[in-house]
């Protein structure tokens, strides 16, 4: 099993969610987060005062999928979240040792 974490632009959330549901992914966790990557924010001027905006609002998606599906999910994420500009976000993939459904103690991929 793989855990896929994707940090994306907030305005892409609906499109990404629809694309994932479209390929049959039905479980995901969505978090409202703030952060920055290489772009490290920027300066804004409002009425003569400078504001440093270093933490930008982003959306983080977390999903755990069977190994066999990971590639397809990642491709779908990239396709639906990309605008081609700075700030599109990142995807992180990690191994999951175990998954347990609390209700009935199903384990492994059966619990996903």
């Amino acid at each position, binding site marked *: 099993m793989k855990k896929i974490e994707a940090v994306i*632009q*907030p*305005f892409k959330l609906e499109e990404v969610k629809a694309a994932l549901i479209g390929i049959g992914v039905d479980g995901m966790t969505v978090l409202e987060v*703030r952060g920055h990557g290489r772009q490290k924010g920027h300066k804004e001027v*409002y009425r*003569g*005062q400078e504001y440093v905006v270093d933490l930008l609002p982003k959306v983080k998606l977390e999903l755990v999928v069977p190994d066999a599906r990971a590639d397809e999910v990642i491709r779908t994420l990239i396709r639906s979240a990309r605008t081609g500009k700075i700030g599109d976000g990142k995807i992180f993939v990690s191994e999951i040792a175990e998954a347990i459904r609390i209700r009935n103690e199903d384990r492994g991929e059966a619990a996903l």
Partner: protein
Amino acid sequence: MAKPHSDGNGGEQTAWRAVKERFFASGSAAAVLAACSELAERSVLAAYQQHLAPVLPQGLALAAVGGFGRRELYPHSDVDLLVVLGRAQTGPLKEGLSSFLRVLWDGGFRVSHSVRTVRECLELRDDNTELTISLLDRRFLAGDRLVYAQMDEGLPQLLRSHRRRLTEQLCRLARSRHAKYQGTIFHLEPNVKDSPGGLRDLHLLEWLDQLREDPLVRSAWLEELGSAREFLARLRCFLHFRSGRDDNVLSFDAQEEFAHTGFGRACSTEEWMRQYYLHARAVFGSAVRAMELGERRSSSLLGEFFAWRSRLATADFSVSRESVLLRSPQRIFHEPEIVLRLFRFVALHGLKLAWETERRIQEALGAIERHYSHRGPHWPALLEVLAMSHAGSALAAMNATGVLGAVFPEWRRIECLVVRDFYHRYTVDEHTLRAIQALDELMATADGNRTWLAGLATEIERADLLRFALLFHDVGKGEAGGCHIERSLELVEAVMERIQLPLIERRLVRWLIARHLDLSAAMTSRDLDDPATARFLAERVETLERLKYLTLITYADISAVNPGAMTPWRLELLRRLYLTAHHELNRELATCRIEVAASDDPERSEFLEGLPVRYVRVHAEEEIDRHLELARRCRERGVAVELVRRDGVHLVTVVARDRPFLFASIAGALAGFGMNILKAEAYTNRRGFAVDNFVFEDPARTLELNPSEAGRLCLTLERVILGKVRARDLLQSRPKRIRPSRASRIEPRVAFDSGASENATLIEIVAEDRPGLLYDLARTISEAGCNIEVVLIDTKAHKAIDVFYVTFEGGKLGAAQQETLRRALIEAARPDS
């Protein structure tokens, strides 16, 4: 109790099934409560005989307390027992008690018990008030009658001597319970026991009744709330049977199931949820009043007298303990319009209504409704309520007393209306009132992340219209299907017509309701870094003024969805959205010019061509026609000036051939007459004619008191514009100003932006307002040899926000030139320069 596990000798399980079946057939809660109490009692008595009586035949009494004591045991509620002892016991009692409890637990009862001596029961300590409160519902079950009688007979004395302390403690507990539910009954998934207006509040009323000094005052509410009690009890029985445990949360699923059950009366989920809220409102209202009354009685008469003579009192209203009373309560029947003056008083001082006042209003609701159902000039009195800083709480009080529905029958469509989704926590009416309160709270916020928004709230001109638009923004949700915004617009149109809202003000209300979802939609669906988004937003909001209104309405609307909806994350998105639109609207002031198609009226085309797009957005057709007339006069005489009075301020419009120092001269001449400039806009069309608008106040009322002064002002303006008189000479005798307090000082800030336009430089200045400020700034720019292309000036609460687009020899300003001008402008903007 709980569902009996086994059929004992008494046939408990069979009896239980029969109770449940009877409930679903009849919907009668009273029968369930009595039957459950009886079933529990039978088992408790059997267990007592078997395990406790043999151990301690004397010196121990068994009492029922809580719901069991009241014979109101719900199917899965705890069975509350009190073991009263003549004196402290050890040894055999402990074993007997554990067998007694085990039998009951094994029988499926959830027993909650305590063991106390008679002496402990008749003591009041801080850590045992709950015991004393539980004793209010005591009932003898079994055991030593003498021991029970000792406790029972001593208790009235205890209650009498600690009446005040117990009342206060009860009220404190109730208030903290209410606070857990944000003090509102309007939760979409309420708890029928603990939410405000739930069964616990009915118990509170009973307890406070028992603690009252004068037994004759008792129970007036009991009859009034009879149907609410039956309704809530039925609901709680249903919830217990439905989930098989002590579950009191009326979830969305439970609401639907209950609607299907119907109990003989088929109606939709929304309809009967409305009934729920109406009952809960009645219960909560009575509970709040009873608490006020209870707490008031526990104070001294002298305190009452002084409170009465509050300094806030007026000829119509008096104030006692922060609550407003009518001086002549009968007046409201033959003079119903006094009700809006009353709520204006509430909105001004942030007070609440005394319950006597609420009662009186409720009796007069018919007269109030008849009065406001006729078309009439009701708006000025409403404006007075809506413009006050506590308008939100005044509107909430208007809603609670039914006045809001009586004045605006349209409001009733959303009263107690449930919206079924995962985000909304409150009914539509409560959401609306919370949105308005969110704005009121914003004005006083100390949160650094919200200061920019609080700033916008002080800069808008018509907070009353913003609140009015919010009040009706979701009123169309009262109807199924279709777009609620369109329906809200239809309904508000009827309201505005009936209260005779001035036509020009209706435009903003309509626009705000129509657009109230635009920014929140853009927040989550548009790329804020994309220039196309900035253009889209600017087209949507049209002007900087409207952007402020829309940002505030968006903030209020989201904040009122649920207590955690306005996260720092959303706030940051909203701020970015505001900035994106703000920068774009500033940019297009200089870049987006009117291009007129050849087919239009040639004179009009000639006049409009080259003016900023903003010009047609902020001026109505009639105004443009008047400006055209001025342009005609200007061609004949070189200048045309028009002065009009509108809504307590003056507006002067000048059309003249553009020249250096033109704007500065007009600003200087107005300041020389002692006028206080609030707003100004200046543009130049392609033919080199300038259209300058100034809105100003006349603090000394010169124009009002001396009719000839208006003519002299116009003449002076013409002479200044034509260069026959110097503005500087007029300013020699300008009046000394009164400076605001030190706390409100604003340090001048000047910012340059060369990227905002293709050929002009944007200068944005924020400074503390003072007479002659605009003249000093404009003069400084002109003295630097710069040409002023576009000007937009706004002043609110001593803060001047000035935007100038300037060119130097037809192009942008260089870096060194900017620095020199910045220093000069800061110097010119200083409060004492």
